[in-house]
């Protein structure tokens, strides 16, 4: 990948990476740091990365940087709350997409990431598998379970509203 191609990848994918990271950690400064680290790592290896695969490489790097960051901060998903229908919110919801993103925050990191990669970027199971290092069947299981959780969450919110 040439310098020009690298700069193109910055222009094309930095927003996507930033949104992906930001939806995970909800901290703009940390998200910016992770994006910067991600592109820094890609730059160090830019001579060995083909431009055709740079998007996948970027997401993979961002994902692992993100996971490391989350592990460092001992992030804990509130999966149990959702599963037992313990969640309750008296916030007013502007639209369905916002509600969905709130539900997304309650998913474990792995499920959350694969759904984000699937819905935001339209990656296939195989591509998500390559990015995350999970097996293809694991990716599928996470997505299906995540979708069920989101559906249940929407249903409960509708009941509450």
């Amino acid at each position: 990948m040439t310098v020009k191609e690298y700069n193109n990848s910055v222009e094309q994918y930095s927003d996507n990476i930033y949104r992906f990271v930001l939806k995970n950690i909800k901290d703009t400064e940390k998200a910016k740091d992770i994006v910067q680290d991600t592109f820094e790592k890609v730059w160090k290896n830019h001579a060995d990365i083909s431009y055709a695969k740079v998007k996948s490489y970027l997401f993979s790097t961002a994902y692992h940087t993100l996971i490391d960051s989350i592990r460092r901060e001992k992030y804990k998903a509130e999966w149990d709350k959702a599963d037992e229908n313990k969640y309750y919110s008296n916030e007013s919801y502007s639209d369905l997409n916002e509600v969905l993103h709130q539900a997304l925050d309650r998913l474990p990191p792995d499920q959350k990431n694969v759904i984000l990669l699937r819905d935001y970027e339209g990656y296939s199971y195989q591509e998500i598998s390559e990015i995350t290092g999970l097996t293809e069947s694991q990716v599928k299981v996470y997505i299906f379970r995540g979708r069920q959780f989101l559906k249940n969450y929407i249903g409960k919110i509708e009941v509450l509203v």
Partner: protein
Amino acid sequence: MDYLDGNLTDSDQTMLLQFLEDNPTLKEELDGLDNMVLNPTEDTFTIKDQLLKTQADEIGLGYPDYIAIKEVEEGLSEEENLWKASYLKEDKQHSNLFTSYTQTLLKANKNIRYQLKGNLKRATLIPIITINKLKRISIAAAVAMLLSVGTLPFLKESAHQMKTVVVNDPPSLITMPKAQTEKAPNKDIQVKDKINTKAAVKQETVVQTIVSTEQRTIVASNDMPIEALGIESFETTKVNAYELGLNEMMPIIIASNMAEREQEYLAMQSQVEQESARLSKSSRAIVGSVKVINFLSGNETKMNKVLNQDGQMVAYQLESENISIRQRIKNKPVTN
């Protein structure tokens, strides 16, 4: 029993049949046993479907949920579409399940943008010079700079530096008092040692010239080419800044102190002279008057004078039988 179970070998079976031919009663018994085989019934397990597993079970979902999610994610096969159709026919509310799953697709907020793209972009300064080359050049430059700085103390001093040392000789050497002028040659020798020239004789002449002339003359002569002074070549020596400063400053300070002492000495000399004159005058008057008294009274009077190195009176002592007078110059020690 082994025969009925089919466990006999061919040879054993031939021998058994031969034996049965010889014993017809036993053969009839064996024929009765052949008819005692159980045949299976036609019953079938009718709820096999309940045991069948699908990928929904693998994921841990109910089959309707699995089909609804699969429709959103991957699309349904023909068989699954048939199942969905039959499922929807069962209850119209089932369609809500499929609608709910279509709503779970997330949409990215495109308004969220990364604002620091400029920081991430890289630039190529000159296509020929790559970043690696630039790094190598900068490292080489840094090493060269360090080496040059590190070897500075080992480089030979230039003739110009040597000239500067001579120019800075203190002017006090010229104005030293007479008593101290004897030390000037020593200073000359020190300067001469520092210079350490090959042409020792010629150098000595130059140094003497510097000492005996004014500062302006020295500067002028130093501005002249070195060859004009008769110096063929200098061997530079390493200069200790502290030592050099000390050598330059100390003569100035010493000269200054000596000048002050000289003035004090002169002032003291004049004072001693005045005092001595006054003392001589007073002593003569006293001696005269004492002699008169002695003449009248018949006593004998002695007078002792104390003189200094220059022969000046600094004290006197007058003694007779009835009187003793001691007088000296104030605040000055008197030695006999």
